[in-house]
């Protein structure tokens, strides 16, 4: 059981370049999330998805786009990378707790470390 897998694990970009981070989960979870983690700060939510074909903005969505064409995959795109997007990106997934639809525990990938020069 692989859980949540992120690719790539490391990437260096030049300002203005674009790239896509891929997240795949094999737990049949409805919810998926993209976070960024910066030193001295907690996780900040970029975008999230509550099901296949749906996405929503989180706390810090500017400069990022996402897509969830298949339930198991959640893609995070940077159209024109900026140095401020240097960070560690984490994907997570969770199940839904009926009937309240409260989120249970999150399962995280190992992170993707992005440096923008």
């Amino acid at each position, binding site marked *: 059981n692989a859980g949540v897998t992120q690719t790539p694990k490391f990437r260096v970009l030049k300002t203005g370049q674009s790239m896509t981070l891929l997240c795949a989960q094999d737990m049949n979870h409805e919810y998926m999330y993209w976070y960024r983690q910066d030193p001295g700060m907690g996780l900040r939510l970029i975008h999230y998805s509550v099901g296949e074909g749906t996405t929503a903005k989180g706390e810090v969505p500017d400069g990022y786009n996402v897509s969830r064409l298949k339930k198991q995959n959640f893609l995070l795109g940077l159209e024109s990378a900026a140095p401020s997007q240097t960070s560690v990106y*984490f994907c997570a997934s969770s199940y839904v707790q009926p009937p309240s639809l409260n989120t249970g525990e*999150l399962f995280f990938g190992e992170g993707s470390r992005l440096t923008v020069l």
Partner: protein
Amino acid sequence: SQQGEEDPQALSIQEGENATMNCSYKTSINNLQWYRQNSGRGLVHLILIRSNEREKHSGRLRVTLDTSKKSSSLLITASRAADTASYFCATHSNYQLIWGAGTKLIIKP
């Protein structure tokens, strides 16, 4: 914006001692979760406590929740070197989790 704020920011104790970390939050919650992050790794869920619960145990972990004070504490008993990590609380409200900045715990041999 951060909802949860952990205290202390860093904690260094001797192996075998107990470690206590605190988390305060601002708004009403559905549940509160604690996670551990080893250096360079992803976060791992430790324990979830619902808003109608006051205390929960899992192995050497004990979590308390005081909704009147909007605070929670995580106690790790009989600490081990492997407990060295950062610990984060996350509060669940309006279908989202909001995270604190974490407590860095160092266990000295």
